[in-house]
C-alpha cells in the first residue's frame, strides 16, 4: 500500500512540464463596454422649434431606452432666466456652454460631442454612435441623505487608457413651465424633462484617467436647491476628451 502511494506521488511529480514565466498567465481582455450615447440639447423657452427637438428625443428614448441619455441645456439667446411672472430654466452654466460651442441657432445638439447636429439629424447620428464600442463602463448612483446628495461614480476600463474629464450633472424631470411652441403660441402648461439644473463637479468636470482592466471610484457631494423637486432629480456622469464623449451613465436620485 505504501509503495502504491509512493508511486503515485512520484508519477505526479514527473508528470508536470516546465512553463516559462511569460506563459504562466494568459491575459483575458475585458468584454467591450456597451455604448451609452449622450445627447446634449441646447434649448430655450423662447425657442419655437425646440419642442420639435424634444419630440425627436422622445422617439429616440422609446427606441433606444437607457442607451441614450438626453440633457436639455437651457441657455443662449432663446433661453429664459425667469422673472416675477414666469419660471425660467436657463442657467449661467447653460449660457456658458452655449457660448463655448458658438452655436448660431436653437435647437441644436451635440451627440457625444462630435460637432453640432441639427435636430433633424439627431436620429441618424445617434444610431451611428451606438454602433461604436466604448472604452470603459460607467455607473453612477446618487443618494439624498439629510438634504445632501451623495454621488458615487464607478468606472471600469475595457480598452486601452482613457484620459479626459469626468463631468457630473444634476437633472430634473417634470417641470411645468412656459414654452413657445412651433405655431408661435405660448404654452404655460408645457412639461420640461431632463433639464440641466447644475453641474456637480465644476463647469467642465475634473481630470480623469483609467486604464484597461482597472476600476476607479469617485465620490462627490452636492447640495440641491430647495426649489427643485427631489423626487424628479437624476444624475448624469460622462467621460469626455478631445475625441468626444467616451461613455455616459445616468441614474435617478434615491431618497433615503
Amino acid at each position: 500500500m505504501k509503495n502504491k502511494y509512493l508511486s503515485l506521488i512520484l508519477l505526479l511529480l514527473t508528470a508536470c512540464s516546465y512553463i516559462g514565466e511569460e506563459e504562466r498567465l494568459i491575459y483575458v481582455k475585458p468584454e467591450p463596454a456597451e455604448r451609452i450615447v449622450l445627447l446634449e440639447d441646447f434649448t430655450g423657452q423662447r425657442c419655437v422649434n425646440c419642442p420639435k427637438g424634444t419630440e425627436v428625443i422622445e422617439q429616440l428614448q422609446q427606441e433606444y431606452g437607457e442607451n441614450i441619455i438626453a440633457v436639455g441645456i437651457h441657455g443662449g439667446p432663446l433661453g429664459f432666466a425667469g422673472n416675477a411672472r414666469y419660471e425660467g430654466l436657463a442657467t449661467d452654466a447653460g449660457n456658458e456652454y452655449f457660448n463655448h460651442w458658438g452655436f448660431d441657432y436653437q435647437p441644436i445638439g451635440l451627440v457625444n460631442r462630435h460637432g453640432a447636429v441639427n435636430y433633424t439629424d439627431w436620429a441618424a447620428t445617434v444610431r451611428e454612435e451606438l454602433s461604436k464600442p466604448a472604452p470603459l463602463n460607467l455607473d453612477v448612483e446618487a443618494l439624498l441623505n439629510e438634504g445632501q446628495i451623495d454621488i458615487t461614480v464607478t468606472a471600469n476600463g475595457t480598452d486601452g487608457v482613457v484620459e479626459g474629464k469626468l463631468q457630473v450633472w444634476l437633472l430634473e424631470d417634470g417641470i411645468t413651465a412656459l414654452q413657445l411652441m412651433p405655431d408661435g403660441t405660448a404654452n404655460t402648461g408645457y412639461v420640461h424633462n431632463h433639464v440641466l439644473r447644475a453641474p456637480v463637479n465644476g463647469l467642465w468636470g475634473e481630470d480623469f484617467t483609467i486604464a484597461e482592466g482597472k476600476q476607479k471610484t469617485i465620490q462627490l457631494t452636492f447640495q440641491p436647491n430647495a426649489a427643485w423637486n427631489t423626487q424628479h432629480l437624476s444624475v448624469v456622469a460622462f467621460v469626455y476628451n478631445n475625441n468626444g464623449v467616451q461613455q455616459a451613465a445616468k441614474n435617478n436620485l434615491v431618497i433615503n
Partner: protein
Amino acid sequence: MNKQLLLLTAFLFASLSAFAQTFEFQYQGASLQDGATVTIAAQENFFGELSCETNPSENPNNGLVLKMQDLSAGNVKAELQIQNNGLGASMIQWCMGGACTMALNKTSLTKTFAPADTVQVLFDATNIKGNGNLLATLTVTQNGQTRKVGILFTNEDATSIKSISPTLSKGEGAIYDLSGRLVNLSTRQLVNSLKNGLYIINGKKVIR
C-alpha cells in the same frame, strides 16, 4: 373677326395669368402693398420683456404672414436685410419656413424653404434697451415673382429720434397704413387711425 378677337383675349388672359402674383404679405389679416412698411413699437411681450415682435405669441397668425396660392411653383427664397439704427436688444431672431436664425449683429440673412398656405414671418427683438430703431427689409422670391415688405422696430422717444434711410426704392419710404394703403397726409382720418406711438412718415417723426 369675333373669333380672332376671342382668341386674342384668351391668349392675353392666359399670358397675364402666368404673371399673376401667387403670393402676398398680410399683416393682421390685411393685404400689404408690395414695398409697404409695417411699424412695430416696443412693448411688453408674453414673457414680460420689452420687445418688438411681428407675430406676438398671443395670436401669432394675426401678425405678419406670407400667404401663398401656388404650392407647386417651387421653393421660396427669402432674403432679409437688416439696418440697425441703435436698437439695443439681447436677442433678435428670424423664423420663417420652419427654421429660425439668430439675427443679432447680422445685416443680411437668407432662407430657402418649401411653400405653404400661410408662412409666419416671425421676426422679433427681445429685451430692448435704449432708444433707436431697426429696419428690416424682407424680399421673397418664388418662380421669378418677387414681393417686398419693410419691418420697422422702434423704441424711440420724441427727443432722441434718428432719421432712417429706408432700403426700399424711391417712393416706398412713405408710411402705409396697416391695410397697406398709402397714407395721404392731408387725410387726417387715416393718420388718426394709426395706433398711438411714434412713427416716421416720409422721413419725419410723427407722434400719434
